[in-house]
């Protein structure tokens, strides 16, 4: 029923069912989704007295007509007391229609008894349902949505300059409008960077342990070999970007546990510099 849930986010529709979809807070989320290539489809019933049941009807129609990749759903609709938890009813109907459709639920708090009710309703059918606070940043919404929808795409953007293309085993650098293939990164170096980029896509703060990366190094001292490969990757990326990456830049060693990607942020653009698909 739904579109492909892995791979690039380009063109994937996200059904937004929220009576506050025109609020500034939601606009910032919708804008972020569009920046990432998603196509938000906002459910907007018409009429003088719009209540939760109309949202439910419109949402269920939109599920069939729009075939979204995921749903962003509010728990609370309007000020009518009977609509206080209409979102949970809508969730139940969505899960009945398509148990595999990812649903990210907006709540004023993502824990508590109403989350438990919703979890109890959804767990029985193994639905991919997650909960997020309405005060969450657009970044956080995007990350959670991505993880619900599927695995890392073939193309992972590392910060704003680098792009890893897993289909063609290639790494590119975007520099002043040009996209240059970094030929030095291939073989084991590519595999190490891919491992780091995949973890980075899942969670920017996630460290990849040495044990996982040492599979791609060789020699008696695999740790030392890994260190050399990491240095070579940083030099190659730095050369392509016309800069030099220090010890605590781009790929950082976390207390002798593993490595983590930490692409440089460009000032004033923090909201758009995360991992992109």
């Amino acid at each position, binding site marked *: 029923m739904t579109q492909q849930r892995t791979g690039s986010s380009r063109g994937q529709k996200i059904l937004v069912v929220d009576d506050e979809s025109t*609020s*500034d*807070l*939601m*606009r*910032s989320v919708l*804008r972020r989704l569009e920046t990432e290539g998603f196509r938000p489809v906002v459910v907007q019933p018409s009429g003088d007295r719009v209540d939760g049941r109309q949202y439910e009807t419109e949402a269920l129609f939109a599920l069939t007509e729009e075939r979204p990749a995921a749903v962003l759903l509010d728990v*609370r609709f309007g000020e009518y007391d009977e609509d206080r938890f209409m979102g949970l009813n809508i969730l139940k109907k969505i899960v009945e229609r398509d148990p595999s459709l990812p649903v990210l639920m907006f709540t*004023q*708090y*993502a*824990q*508590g*008894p*109403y*989350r*438990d009710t919703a*979890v*109890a309703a*959804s*767990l*029985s*059918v*193994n*639905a991919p349902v997650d909960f997020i*606070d*309405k*005060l*969450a*940043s*657009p*970044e*956080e919404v995007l*990350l*959670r949505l991505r*993880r619900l929808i599927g695995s890392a795409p073939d193309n992972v953007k590392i910060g704003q300059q680098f792009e890893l293309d897993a289909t063609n085993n290639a790494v590119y650098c975007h520099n002043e409008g040009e996209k240059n293939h970094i030929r030095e990164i291939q073989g084991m170096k590519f595999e190490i960077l891919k491992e780091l980029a995949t973890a980075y896509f*899942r*969670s*920017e*703060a*996630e*460290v*990849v*342990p040495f*044990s*996982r990366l040492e599979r791609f190094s060789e020699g008696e001292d695999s740790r030392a070999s890994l260190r050399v490969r990491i240095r070579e990757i940083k030099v190659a990326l730095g050369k392509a970007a016309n800069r030099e990456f220090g010890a*605590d830049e781009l790929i*950082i060693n*976390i*207390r002798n*546990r*593993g490595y*983590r990607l*930490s692409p440089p*942020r460009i000032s*004033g*653009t*923090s*909201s758009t510099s*995360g991992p992109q698909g």
Partner: protein
Amino acid sequence: MPRTPRDIALYTGLAIAGIGVLLLVIGPVIGDSLSPDTVLTVEPISYAGAITLIVGLALVAGTYLIARRAGSNSGSDSDSGVANWSQVTQDYFDTFSHDMGRPFRRILGREREVRARIEESGVELPESVRGLMDEIEQQAPSFRLMLENVRVLVELEDPNANSVMEPVDPAGIVRNIADRYFALAKEQGIELSWWAEPQEFGLVYGDAAAIDHVVTNLVDNAMKFASGNIEVRLTRNPTHYYIRVWDDGKGIPDSHLPHLFDRGWTPALAGRQEKSSSGLGLYIARTLCRRSDGDLAAESVAERGGVGAGTGEADGHYTSMTVMLPLRDRPEFGSNGHSGGGDGSQRGNGERIT
């Protein structure tokens, strides 16, 4: 002491029945026989005793049945009363939280809208305006946590509150919390990292909401004091799993460590700079851990102080909070919390799923 009409009726019935038993016992001893030549050697006092006993028992039984019916309709026994009180309190809090959150959501939404427009236009903002916008953004996680702390406090006041056991992915919880704080940490020059050992940590049975709340409190705390690094590490042994939140802040003096989890204790007491803490976060965190048969422990090396004191890495000062939770066996089907199988890994009763 009887306090309600139901109690009064119950005690009266028991008293009448008791008198009946007494009359039955003493009847043959003190009364005259009505029919000495028959087997019916029952005394009038015994008749009175039997009737009194029946009336007493009928009163007790009637009271019990009426109370049971009323209880099933409105939850009038004491346990249901507590449950109702708890539900009513949670409902009040829900409404209160929604109303209180609304102005902050509006402010936050407006700030994000303005920020987006300014970034699109490329206009350079005065430092003070950017500072104000950053401040609003930085307060959002604290505001979220504050509301959650109040909600959990309300929940902890419920004498019937129990952990809700469900299949939980601890690595997923830590990942979500890292997502929540990562951008903010970066803005503040703090490297926030997390890892799990083993990397594919798997599922455990636990109280997801409690784990989330505990670790959020610890990371939020670490954000206030870290010099440049926060690390969250997830490990396990055959009986327990551990979530350690480490920061390279200036640490806590030994003399203050025993008070760290006291209700209302504030970091100011330990000489730290943060003044706005309610002193509830760590208390709640440890209470939640203990409610799940686990614990929360603190370890810290305080800054030696003086000119040239370096970062945690260089100077050796740090604070480490470790959550310890038991690796539970799967609860009996439907016996506790959610019984649905959302993880696809439930293969039989009593099975450990890690």
